[in-house]
């Protein structure tokens, strides 16, 4: 990448916007995923009875739907990110690339 393009991209306000938006969403979702997972691990370590309690009186315990929901949440969070990144962020990125060529 030559110096010209580099300075042009860096001084483009759209680039700052892209970096800001994408980084923020990436960290927000990462922290959310880590919180869900390590929350689960901490409950396992310190209060396993919570997950072993019966769900509505049957044999099924609270832990079963919780576990399945964590698996689904991983999929949903990736979906949210990909949707946002492949539309809004990529459009912005496309404009930055076009601007840099001129």
């Amino acid at each position, binding site marked *: 990448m030559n110096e010209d393009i580099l300075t042009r*991209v860096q001084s483009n306000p759209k680039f700052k916007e892209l970096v800001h938006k*994408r980084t923020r969403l*990436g960290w927000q979702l990462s922290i959310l*995923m880590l919180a869900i997972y390590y929350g*689960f691990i901490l409950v396992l370590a310190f209060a396993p009875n919570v997950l072993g309690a019966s769900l509505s009186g049957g044999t099924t315990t609270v*832990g079963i739907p919780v576990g399945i929901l964590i698996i689904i949440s*991983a999929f949903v969070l*990736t979906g949210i990110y990909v949707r946002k*990144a492949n539309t809004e962020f990529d459009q912005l990125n496309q404009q930055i690339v076009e601007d840099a060529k001129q």
Partner: protein
Amino acid sequence: MKSWMKTLCATALAGLPTLALAAGAFEGEVTKQATNWSAIIMFFLFVAFTMGITYWASRRTRSASDFYTAGGGITGFQNGLAIAGDYMSAASFLGISAMVFDKGFDGLIYSIGFLVGWPVILFLVAERLRNLGKFTFADVASYRLQQTPVRTFAATGTLVVVALYLIAQMVGAGKLIQLLFGMNYSSAVILVGVLMVLYVTFGGMLATTWVQIIKAVILLGGASFMAFMVLATVGFSPEMMFQKAVAIHAKGISIMSPSKADPIDSISLGLALMFGTAGLPHILMRFFTVSDAKEARKSVFFATGFIGYFYILTFIIGFGAIMLLLNQPTMMETVVKNGKEVTQLIGGSNMAAIHLANAVGGDLFLGFISAVAFATILAVVAGLALSGASAVSHDLYASVIKKGKANEADEIRVSKITTVVLGVVAILLGLLFEKQNIAFMVGLAFSIAASANFPVLFLSMFWKGLTTRGAVVGGFIGLISAVALIVMGPAVWVDVLKNETALFPYKNPAIFSITLAFVFTWLISVLDKSKSAVEEKAKFEAQFVRSMTGIGAAGASKH
């Protein structure tokens, strides 16, 4: 019941903690079985079909980019399946369903640990990786650092991880084939080694990826059928399934709740699983097989979906096995372990999914699932071999020895020679480790990936202050501490070396070795006042712009 199963009377596939860390290994003595023809025929159909694909791929594999990354022409959906395939090894299929069969709920905990690394890889790493790299993760780590030391480190990290993983897979393959097909151990190991070399040298990444995709599809199909049949027996009521399982299981209602675990070990295991995934070279390499960052993101989305779905299936399969196999006289055997008589599933708990295949689908389906289990190992070792070969040819040969001036034909030739050497080494190690306890190896591979590869890769993309010295010293400290702590821990010091107590109390050292790696990488980088360090920091801005926008990134080759 098939006669070959009845003859089973070995200690067989013991020890589930073994499989605690992903694609694990099969432990213990295994007795050769009577030849299972339906499984062998189906397996050879798979081999014949994938050889056809390899031939097709070989005609499309000309340039280095074709060889390492299938020319960047794989779509996000296909790559998602291939990544899921790399993850759905024989051990995670048989091992996690066996864990559910033995312990119930605890199996789900491991599944979750394997899965949650993926979203984080997507949010933080995937697109930067795709925008900066070309063939290997070392391309990214050494982007603005000195090529020779950083690539030497990255190639070392790659080869160590690949070697450990390969040994575990080879030994697992040998034992699995003895059990499933009734072939002998050494011919099974040689067969796996030879097929692996053929796929990679002739078909490169294109063949390796398609073998993985086909395997992923048939494994998902087979597992879906089994889960469907299990649920059908209880009128699609999970509550009914759990009730029946609890009524029959020796541990009773406790299989529905988590068992006690040490908090530090649990958190450390979580870290190793999450960041190890982000440092496994054969997985990282898959991000370069798609055309751009957009497809790279899609591939993680699909991979997370397929892997999550697969783990839900294995959970149902595990409970189905409790419900339909446990205490069925034709499915159980009594063996002597450590002088005591133990009643267990024929062949041990790792056979739960295989027996269940017989129970829900008959002999033919049993053969099918056995063939799929073997195909799974083949597909995984091919990916590993390609990753190891590219570390040698692209990082060591082309960049370190030839200083980036190697011609492409030579580089590919070195890659193919390395693949053959890796095949021979893998076969020899597989034979050498037949009688060894290799339970710790996959855990070690994950810990090294998390403690050596991941910190350097992560900091190279996120931290301007990283210097060559910091990366190399910190990376090697991560590698050495992960190895040392596992050797001193219970998995090796007690289980393999037969000492009374471990020098280091935890099974999973990742929380310590990852911290050490990050701290030393940071410290040495900060203290590095050399002229080259100043230059390296100055190059971060250009790297950052490319990692964000993809300007200048390697695209798909056109043909």
